[in-house]
């Protein structure tokens, strides 16, 4: 199927690649279906979460494993009911303003994707993780 995207124009995606959020991106409850898009120039540790239902809605997400911090989240009970069985991919939603020094990622509420069930959920973790983890340590730019 062909979808319109915010940053990549019109693209063709296989229907099976769509993730359905069983627990929504909080604040965007009306949109449940997204695709994950890559940009080869940017690399594998950053993806776009593009809404299928609203072309202007997309989130840029980063692999928390690539960040300069210890991050091994434990999923709260009930997560398997949201995501189905399998191995989950974990992505952190990034806020990247024009002044990129102020960029942050939300490690408290990552997005989990299950590539086998194609279910997804934004899950608020119980641990003491920052909602605004700075991507740059300020002052070194």
């Amino acid at each position, binding site marked *: 199927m062909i979808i319109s995207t915010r*940053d990549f124009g019109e693209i063709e995606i296989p229907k099976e690649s769509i993730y359905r959020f069983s627990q929504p*991106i*909080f*604040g*965007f409850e009306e949109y449940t279906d997204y695709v994950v898009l890559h*940009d080869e*120039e*940017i*690399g594998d540790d*950053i993806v*776009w979460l593009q809404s299928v239902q609203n072309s202007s*809605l*997309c*989130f*840029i997400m980063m692999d928390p494993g690539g960040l300069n911090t210890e991050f091994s989240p434990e999923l709260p009970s009930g997560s398997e009911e949201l995501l189905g069985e399998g191995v989950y991919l974990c992505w952190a*939603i*990034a*806020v*990247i*303003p*024009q002044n*990129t020094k102020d*960029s*942050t990622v*939300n490690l*408290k*509420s990552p997005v989990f994707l299950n590539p086998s069930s194609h279910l997804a959920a*934004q899950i*608020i973790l119980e641990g003491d993780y920052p*909602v*605004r983890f700075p*991507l*740059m340590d300020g002052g*070194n*730019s």
Partner: protein
Amino acid sequence: MLVISRKQGDSVIIEPENGGEPIEIKIISIDNQVKIGIDAPHGCKIWRDELYKTIEINRSAAEISSAEALRSLVAKNKSGD
């Protein structure tokens, strides 16, 4: 931040400056977790802070984060390595 010590069963009352109805927060029990009760005027929204902040951040992420800013961030990080 104002910090007040309270015992189980005690309350604090928050009175808005503009003469709105006061909000009462009561410490119901203290174990491993603190259980609190909140009496607030009708229409007053009460959030768990992590959910409130997540919504706030999701909205700014959708609104602010651009591919252009991301490219410039990635370029800066590469040059900093």
